């Protein structure tokens, strides 16, 4: 159950719309069942009162829609963001994907979201933060960065032998159907034309034809968002084949933290991402293995 009630959000949306402070509301629309909630825009009061939803199944991160909506729509847009969504929002602002002025952010404290079967989403059971890092207005109480155990599974994998790790990932990747849902939902993936859709990239492909292509897609995708991924967990949430994609992103986050110092993408606006940054005495690639022994 969410502490923050639906009524608070509905009333806020209706009043801001009524005052003319915003022209469009981005939120979640009721579905056929409790759990099938669709991200949606609202412009009319009765539509909001009737169809706006806020319950335990509002897992969808709305921040990426702003890239599209700020270009398409006139006026100011009200968006409801949960704590983890605010990190994505900040990261998008850092990358100049839309104007801050065009958006009115209402931060909503969240108590964890569920999937259709009623189990907690992975991103929520390993919740990294209940802090709302950006908002114009707040509903509920602001929280703190959680002391989450989110790297436990990464460590579990790291402690395996390479053969076991290879077998693990082969099994996971072999299920991939290349629907691209992980990419399309990812708030860090906002390229106009993705490299996987670009016929000139040489890796454009619509199917995981060989085991190499399965690996290639997921390595490149994780690498493209390395240092920019806020760990919002949307990729794992939407994967129809239930591949634990967050384990790839978290590996990069964990490595970045240990190699280059603690870094949380989206924690602040305007941060310089670790992969477009350096220091003269960074760790050498050989130092990450073999206990730092030099090769030659």
């Amino acid at each position, binding site marked *: 159950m969410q502490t923050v009630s639906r009524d608070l959000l509905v009333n806020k949306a209706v009043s801001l719309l009524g005052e003319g402070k915003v022209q469009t509301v981005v939120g979640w629309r009721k*579905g*056929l*069942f409790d*759990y*099938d*909630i*669709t*991200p*949606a*825009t609202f412009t009319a009061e009765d*539509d909001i009162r*009737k*169809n706006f939803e806020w319950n335990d199944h509002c897992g*969808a991160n709305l921040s990426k*829609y702003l890239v599209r909506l700020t270009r398409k729509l006139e006026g100011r847009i009200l968006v409801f963001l949960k704590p983890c969504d605010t990190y994505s929002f900040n990261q998008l602002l850092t990358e100049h994907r839309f104007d801050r002025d065009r958006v009115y952010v209402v931060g909503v404290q969240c108590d964890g979201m569920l999937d*259709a079967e009623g189990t907690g989403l992975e991103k929520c059971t390993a919740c990294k933060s209940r802090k709302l890092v950006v908002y114009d207005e707040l509903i509920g109480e602001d929280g703190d960065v959680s002391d989450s155990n989110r790297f436990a599974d990464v460590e579990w994998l790291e402690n395996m032998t390479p053969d076991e790790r290879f077998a693990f990932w082969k099994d996971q990747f072999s299920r991939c*159907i*290349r*629907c*691209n*849902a992980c*990419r*399309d*939902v990812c708030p860090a993936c906002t390229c106009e*034309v993705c490299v996987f*859709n670009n*016929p000139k990239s040489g890796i*454009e*492909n*619509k*199917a*995981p*034809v060989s085991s190499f292509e399965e690996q290639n897609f997921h390595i490149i995708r994780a690498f493209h968002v390395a240092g920019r991924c806020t760990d919002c967990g949307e990729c794992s*949430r*939407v994967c*129809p084949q239930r591949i634990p994609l967050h384990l790839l992103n978290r590996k990069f986050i964990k490595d970045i933290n240990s190699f280059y110092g603690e870094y949380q993408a989206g924690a602040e606006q305007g941060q310089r991402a670790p992969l477009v940054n350096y220091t003269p005495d960074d760790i050498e690639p050989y130092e990450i293995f073999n206990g730092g022994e030099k090769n030659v």
Partner: protein
Amino acid sequence: MYKCNIDSLPKVLDEIRKHYEVFEVGERGAKPVFFPQAEDLMRFKTEGKNIELFDVRAEVQDFVVFGVHACDLRALDVLDNVFLKDPVDTYYQARREHGIIITEACSSPENTCFCTVFGIDPSEPGGDVTIWKDGGSVYWLFNTMKGGDLFMKIESVLEEVSDDIVTDIKSSIRRKLEKLPLAGLSTDDFGAGKTDKFFNDPEWAGLSESCLGCGTCTFVCPTCQCYDIRDFDTGHGVIRYRCWDSCMYSEFTKMSAGQPRLTQLERFRQRFMHKLVYYPDNNDGMFSCVGCGRCLQKCPIQMNIVKVMKRLGGEAK
């Protein structure tokens, strides 16, 4: 009608495996068995001015597909209308001819199921062989010649029972189906000849507004049949293969002039119009949705054909 113990089902399957390769279908259904996601069509090799062509098809042996639900069997009829009409797709045809389909009556339909809306009866799914399960037994009915061939091979592990033994199971399934939340959905508004009615419906904008443009719905759908043919350069030759494609993708049917459907609204509309209007137009009114409910479960933003039908059908917003 024959029966075996539910505990001895693995043994019966092992018996079948002695004679056939067996595909036990899981949540992805039977489509990938007959129409795989990627498939090599041919191979080229060039040496000097000569191009050599290789047929990469291996001869297909008889195989068994086990556990197909009624909706997925109807989905194969939908695919047949596409692939087996002139010009016949011989790759698909070979697998259809050699596949022996064992269907399973749905004793526990899910809340997202709405196959009855399309006139499908999951209590009597058909196919070459049908099985019904109850608490302790599995009942086997062999419907076709192909099913009969299979029967000869596993006769020794089954015992004969009377046909009416499954009557109760069937009626219990039908009772469950009537109570499903989506059982009352109507297809009356849709079908052949409705293009003009729905094509410019203002509802499409709202329905498609948050579509991500991923291919999940099309790849989990048992009736989506679009594919792309591509060449892979191996460095010393070319492999021509086909793979599933999705009308949701920005590069779907891309030509020199670009994609014919430029916005996600158009792509979204295409998919649902195809299921509900265009396919019926070309196939005597047959819908190319079978109500399996996969898109209801898998869509990242929870938009699906039921919501489309309800909204276009005039249900209040």
